[in-house]
């Protein structure tokens, strides 16, 4: 496609009206900033941004309403994580038992390398247990690389409690108890 170039008229070629226009625009902004509206920028550490709903900040692990770790170490987030920021150590048979007895499994260690994390939210989306959420933290700092690898303890502490509506495991436990099928063995 050929765009036809308009021929400049005399005033445009003279450049001076454009110059005046520029002066006017910049002067208006200067006056507005100084005397009318103030700056549009925010002075960061003192003023903080209100994080909107649905914002994807740092991913943290959550506990359920009983304070039990929700993660069951299925490692789907580790699998789906595009930058491979998540590293989960499964419990193995000898590892610690899960917080919720009938959930059977809980990660031995859960690490997120926040330097690698790209806050895409795939982990939250893929999680079958609603155990990981992208929270509103956007300013993560540390003085060395090791500090930026958040372990399970830290992630759970930062994540806090998530009040889920489904209560899958609680429901299962109640059902099993009703059928006298729990605990599985004494």
């Amino acid at each position, binding site marked *: 496609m050929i765009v036809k170039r308009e021929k400049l008229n005399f005033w445009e070629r003279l450049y001076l009206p454009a*110059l005046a226009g520029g002066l006017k625009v910049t002067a208006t902004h200067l006056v507005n900033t100084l005397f009318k509206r103030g700056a549009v920028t925010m002075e960061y550490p003192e003023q903080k941004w209100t994080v909107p709903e649905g914002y994807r900040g740092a991913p943290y692990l959550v506990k359920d309403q009983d304070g039990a770790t929700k993660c069951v170490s299925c490692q789907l987030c580790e699998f789906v994580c595009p930058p491979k920021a998540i590293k989960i150590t499964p419990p193995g048979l000898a590892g610690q038992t899960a917080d919720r007895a009938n959930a059977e499994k809980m990660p031995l260690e859960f690490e997120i390398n926040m330097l690698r994390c790209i806050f895409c939210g795939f982990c939250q989306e893929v999680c079958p247990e609603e155990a990981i959420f992208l929270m509103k933290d956007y300013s993560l700092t540390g003085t060395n690389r090791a500090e930026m690898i958040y372990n399970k303890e830290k992630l759970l502490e930062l994540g806090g409690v998530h009040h889920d509506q489904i209560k899958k495991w609680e429901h299962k436990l109640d059902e099993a108890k009703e059928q006298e099928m729990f605990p599985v063995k004494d």
Partner: protein
Amino acid sequence: MDWFNHLNPDLQFVLLSAVKVLAVLFLALLPMVAYSVLAERKISAWIQDRVGPNRVALPLLSGIPFLGSFLTRLGIWQPIADGVKSFLKEDFTPDHVRKIYFWLAPAITLIPAFLTVAVIPFGSTLGAQKMVIADLNVGILYSFGIVSLGVYGIVLAGYASNSKYPFLGGIRSSAQMISYEIAMGMSVVSVFMLVGDLNLSKVIEYQAGTTLGFIPNWLVFKQPVAFVIFLVAAFAETNRLPFDLPESETELVGGYNTEYSSMKFALFFMGEYANMIVSSAMMVTLFFGGWTLPFFGLDQRAESAQWLTGLAHIGIFVAKMLVLMVVFIWVRWMLPRFRYDQLMDLGWRRFIPLALANILATAVVLFLLNK
């Protein structure tokens, strides 16, 4: 003062000159350079709806109620922090540069700017002293001579850096500065045709008084075309936007100063602002009546006892200069960079013919008036 009066006149002259040099350099020029950087940052922030530097605080001074925090928010201590930072930063010299030229270039950029100040009369008289470091008869020729040295610093920096971007920056600057020097010089010719003297003090004296009682006799009104050419050429000579092609961060990374860091980079930076100050001072002298104001008799030299008038003259000069500095800064945040061919076109095919025409017109008018 007795001891001073007993010295022989030559020695007196030397001592006084030394005092003047030190005062102008360290009390006026360098602080002005530092604070013009701050002004640049603040004004650019305001134009862009920002706040600008407002963080640097001095331990005790910031404690003063109201005023302390006001000064901090104004960024008044920022230049100090900038200076300290420049000194503390690692002075890194890349391995591939030509060491001697690399070290020499920043100094060569800064020194001509300082030297030019020598001939500018920044006040009438204070006590018995003329407020000019060197009252040369060929002041303007001297300053043009010195200013053209400034290009060497940048060209040398580009050459010494021994890498692509600085090299391109250096080449651009040499062509640009040489081109605009011609226009600049020619624009001034018409001014001196009117004044009839090359001494800058004489130029100022010529501009005293008013026409029709209210228009100052400033040459900007008598030679507007010369002023416009001089102004534009001054932008080009100081590498300021819209003519900052030697630097042009967006295309040449940093142009000639790409390889520089720490204090050596700061010297380039200071050089740019010192050049702006000198250009402003030169324009004030040539076109805005220097230290004079056509009212309240402020257009006559102060007598040796009139200390206040003497100081007022200096104040007037500085004030005029600051207005021009703001124009420099303002224009930078308003206009986009020219394309290189446009720059050359403007210099050679517009301003040089225009300056020649202006000289011719001035000559014709003078001829007719004198007849």
